[in-house]
């Protein structure tokens, strides 16, 4: 950790700050939504600090605001977060050497930190990138939540700034290097198609998991080779 500041790549820092700025806006809208839904401040902060998974946080507040039960809300939130299991498998080996640090790093595993780290390949730079992105997003998300909660309905809709387009675009930009591989591209296209087709029929969170069906495309080259 002592050498962390020396090992941080300036470009990585700039990119992570860009993501963190965007996430702060979304965090503010989460805080405002929770305040509007009359969720107590301590609970709202606990969600952002302890859950730290935006999609599930918005979902549980929305379910409760719509009059749904807490059990249904938690179940729906956990379903959305199930994708962290395969994420953990993919990046788990490169979070930290020792368990205490690994347990801490596990908490900042979000879509962006996973994609950010993977975009830097493996090794030290990718590990530093994971912590840099995860830590900045964690701070920005929580500061945003607190600010949004206090400002309440004065918080403008982040959609009017196009923030909802910024995240998929950012993730895609981070994914492009890995999509240079033909097998990854095939898997990706099939995953996107499967998830989109599932969206009208399945509850939030499941369509993304259905995307794992894209893995069947990973088998294609070998089987085609055998037939040829």
């Amino acid at each position, binding site marked *: 950790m002592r050498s962390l500041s020396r090992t941080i790549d300036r470009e990585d820092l*700039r*990119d992570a700050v*860009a993501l963190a700025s*965007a996430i702060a806006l979304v965090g503010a809208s989460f805080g405002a939504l929770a305040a509007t839904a009359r969720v107590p401040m301590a*609970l709202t902060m606990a*969600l952002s600090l*302890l*859950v730290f998974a935006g999609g*599930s946080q918005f979902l*549980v507040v929305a379910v*409760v605001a719509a009059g749904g039960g*807490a059990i249904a*809300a*938690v179940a729906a*939130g*956990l379903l959305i*977060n*199930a994708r962290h*299991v*395969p*994420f*953990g*498998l993919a990046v*788990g080996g490169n979070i930290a050497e020792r368990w205490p640090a690994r347990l801490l790093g*596990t908490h900042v*595993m979000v*879509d962006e930190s*996973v994609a950010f780290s993977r975009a830097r390949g493996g090794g030290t730079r990718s590990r530093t990138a994971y912590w840099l992105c995860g830590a900045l997003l964690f701070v920005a998300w929580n500061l945003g939540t607190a600010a949004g909660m206090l400002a309440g309905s004065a918080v403008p809709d982040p*959609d*009017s700034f*196009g923030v*909802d*387009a*910024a*995240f*998929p*675009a*950012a*993730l*895609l*930009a*981070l*994914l*492009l290097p890995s*999509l240079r591989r033909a097998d*990854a591209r095939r*898997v*990706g*296209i099939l*995953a*996107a198609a499967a998830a*989109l087709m599932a*969206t009208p*029929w399945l509850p939030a969170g499941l369509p*993304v998991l259905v*995307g*794992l069906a*894209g*893995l069947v495309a*990973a088998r294609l080259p070998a089987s085609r080779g055998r037939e040829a």
Partner: protein
Amino acid sequence: MNWPAVLTLACGTYLLRLTGVVLRDRMRLPDRVERYVDLGATALLVALVATAALTDGSGFAGWARPAGVAVGAVAAWRKVPFVLVVVLAAATTAVLRYLGVP
């Protein structure tokens, strides 16, 4: 919303995150499986991009958001710096919405 619900979600989410990390630590994965784990992460992230770009709830997100994501995608493909990709995507969507595109 109450404390048991928040703490259950928090513990559950942490355990989901930890499961993969622990499994990874316990197992020595053969290269073939390693490739699937890596491609699996790609599959999930691409699925996430597709659904986040095109859908809202169970329906279509409207044109402004996918248009912004498309502009960002082209920019990223042309190797425009990451920060600019993010800004271009957001700005495109924001301008389209300002002009009344849903």
